């Protein structure tokens, strides 16, 4: 066999192998590819299209041009309430959960006895189905008869209206968020325990106090996890739905006679963007307008996460990096 023929055979064998590999990859990725096209890419494009139409599922979409967007930005009275509420959530709930989880993780990392049991106790509420946890909380925080206000009254304190008060409803939801912080807590705990003890010890020997040790050793070390927590927190805040939906329904009471939903009770305080989106899409079947809302939500989500990730390069230290 001449060298050219041998080389040719090898080349053809290589190509056959390449084709075999490509076929394998196609096979392995096929389900995902279909899923991504049908359940992600297509909906994004379709939402964009629907946002320029009036569509209520009964008749074909009718073209409206920019009318939906005009209504959204200029006329819709509830939209800005929804936007403000969701922004409030991002500004308050995310830091609260992250800081609380980090704080409790630090506390737990120093516990010597019963660390496992403590971890379980703090993780348990996060296991509870959200509907169950919210229902329980709504009952506990009933301003008239709930255990929380009852116990406060033993100390002579008149408890606030919690989920029934326009200014106290969202803070109560934050309390619910803190109670369910178990997942973040576990992650932070693992990260804190992972901080190289050699670094901590040498810092201590150098005379650094607890605070400086935290800021200059622990914090940079757990910064990737911190970033993860913040990004997840922001995404959760953007899609926050179940707790608000269930809590508003419970707090307002079962006025089952009228089909009017309690969405946003009280006084629109719990009308978050996804709640309002749900009302437009599945309450009033304004699919076109609701699609415009999702397009706006998409842009905001991309912008926010992009911003956070870009900004993160300044303060996140990945393992093995030197700064």
């Amino acid at each position, binding site marked *: 066999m001449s060298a050219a023929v041998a080389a040719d055979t090898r080349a053809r064998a290589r190509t056959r192998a390449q084709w075999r590999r490509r076929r394998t990859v196609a096979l392995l990725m096929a389900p995902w590819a279909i899923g991504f096209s049908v359940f992600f890419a297509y909906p994004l494009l379709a939402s964009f299209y629907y946002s320029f139409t009036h569509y209520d599922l009964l008749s074909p979409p009718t073209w409206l041009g920019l009318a939906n967007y005009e*209504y959204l930005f200029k006329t819709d009275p509830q939209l800005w309430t929804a936007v403000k509420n969701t922004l409030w959530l991002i500004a308050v709930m995310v830091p609260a959960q992250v800081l609380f989880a980090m704080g409790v993780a630090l506390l737990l990392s120093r516990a010597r006895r019963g660390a496992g049991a403590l971890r379980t106790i703090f993780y348990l509420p996060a296991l509870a189905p959200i509907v169950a946890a919210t229902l329980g909380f709504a009952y506990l925080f009933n301003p008239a008869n709930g255990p929380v206000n009852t116990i406060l009254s033993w100390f002579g304190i008149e408890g606030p209206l919690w989920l029934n008060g326009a200014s106290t409803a969202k803070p109560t939801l934050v309390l619910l968020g803190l109670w369910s912080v178990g997942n973040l807590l576990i992650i932070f705990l693992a990260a804190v325990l992972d901080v190289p003890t050699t670094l901590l010890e040498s810092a201590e020997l150098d005379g650094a106090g607890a605070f400086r040790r935290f800021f200059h050793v622990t914090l940079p070390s757990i910064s990737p996890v911190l970033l993860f927590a913040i990004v997840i927190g922001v995404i959760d805040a953007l899609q926050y739905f179940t707790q608000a939906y269930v809590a508003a329904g419970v707090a307002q009471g079962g006025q089952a006679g009228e089909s009017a939903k309690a969405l946003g009770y009280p006084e629109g305080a719990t009308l978050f963007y996804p709640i309002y989106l749900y009302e437009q899409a599945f309450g009033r079947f304004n699919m076109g307008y609701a699609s415009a809302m999702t397009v706006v939500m998409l842009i905001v989500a991309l912008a926010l996460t992009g911003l956070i990730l870009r900004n993160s390069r300044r303060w996140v230290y990945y393992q093995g990096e030197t700064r």
Partner: protein
Amino acid sequence: MTLRATAAIGLVASAIAIAGCGGSSSGSSSAEAIPKLNTAEKVTINYWVPFTGSELGLVRKVVTGFEKANPNVKVNVVGNINDEKIIAAAHSGNVPDAALSFTADNTAVFCKDGTFLNLGPTISREGIDVNNFPPSQRAYTEYKGNRCVLPAMADTYGLYYNKAMFAKAGITAPPKTISELTEDAKKLTVRSGNGFSVVGYTPYIGFYENSAAHYGPTFGAKWQTSEGKSAIASEPGWTELAEWDKHLVDYYGSNALVRFQAGAGEEFSGSNAFMTGKLAMNIDGEWRTALIKSEAPKLQYGTAPLPAADGKSELYGGGYTTGNITGIPKGAKHPAAAWKLISYLATNTQAEVELANDLGNVPTWIPAREQVQRTASPQFQTFLSVFHNPHTTTTPVVPSGEASQKTFENYLEKYQTGNGGELKKGLEGVASQINALEAQATGGGVP
């Protein structure tokens, strides 16, 4: 490359699928009569109703009467359905054969795109005289000439008052004007600690049956101008309602009132605040008489028409009415049998009498009135007379359904706790929002 091909195929395939099924065929309602029922064929139909608990059982009992009259038809009555579920079902094609709604707020929604079948031709074929329904009932069962639902039991609203408490406070007659109501409410309130053991009357919009629609007629306030635009800002009655509401809420203290209401017991449970003596007077519908009879029989109570706004005493005796509407969704599998059922419930005198007596509702079929009146309790008689009073009106049928009412009430809820800013500006804002909503609901964007 194969990946991109798969992705592309997926996209194209789904696009074709969607385009191919794009929109259900012809949104317009074909004005054809429903075919007559083939009495030899056995059918089972699904009837979606909002009733729950004991009321559901009573409705099933009446439906059994229908089954006896139509031996080959079996009806599966499903409870706890609200308007949203019906609309969702209509949009997804998973419809029952017939459905009933507690309010007429969504009549336009049901009628306008043919979501419910146009019953007009069938009504004329069967020779049903629609004048046997009172004018309000005729008004809220059609939209732009298309009658797609029948009325089946109506509700009217009035004042319930606790006779024992009245006697103790020395009040001899129920209040006829809003000022008298306010005065009596303050007299009957009993404070306890930081809260109340008895609240005289709470006007808090959003609590129990307090809503703008229910107060409209007695405040003489219309929803629409003659051009069909929102009259929230122009009708003085709405301003009076808002101011009275806020005045009384401030008297109790809005925080204290909210706290009271949070512990007040569910409206339709046995712990209803009026039935348990926590509320001395309450606005409620006629069905409450039946609930009191079964769940709080020892309660000494009286009923009267709702007090009218000061200076509008001619309106006293009237009130708000709305009622159940029942129709056949497009795509129902057995429309003929469904029609038999809903026409039975709406126009069969015996059925109407039975429903009225069992549920404590007002019959919408005028020929049934006489029988009901003969056996009605004195408290129920009030509602019968309110129902037939010429000043009794209903909310106009609008394409946005109840969204307009909700918009107004969202503002009132803020205003009554002091978060509503200046009233005039607030009401004007509401009016323009409602106008925009209606435009959006009819397929436009911004007016």
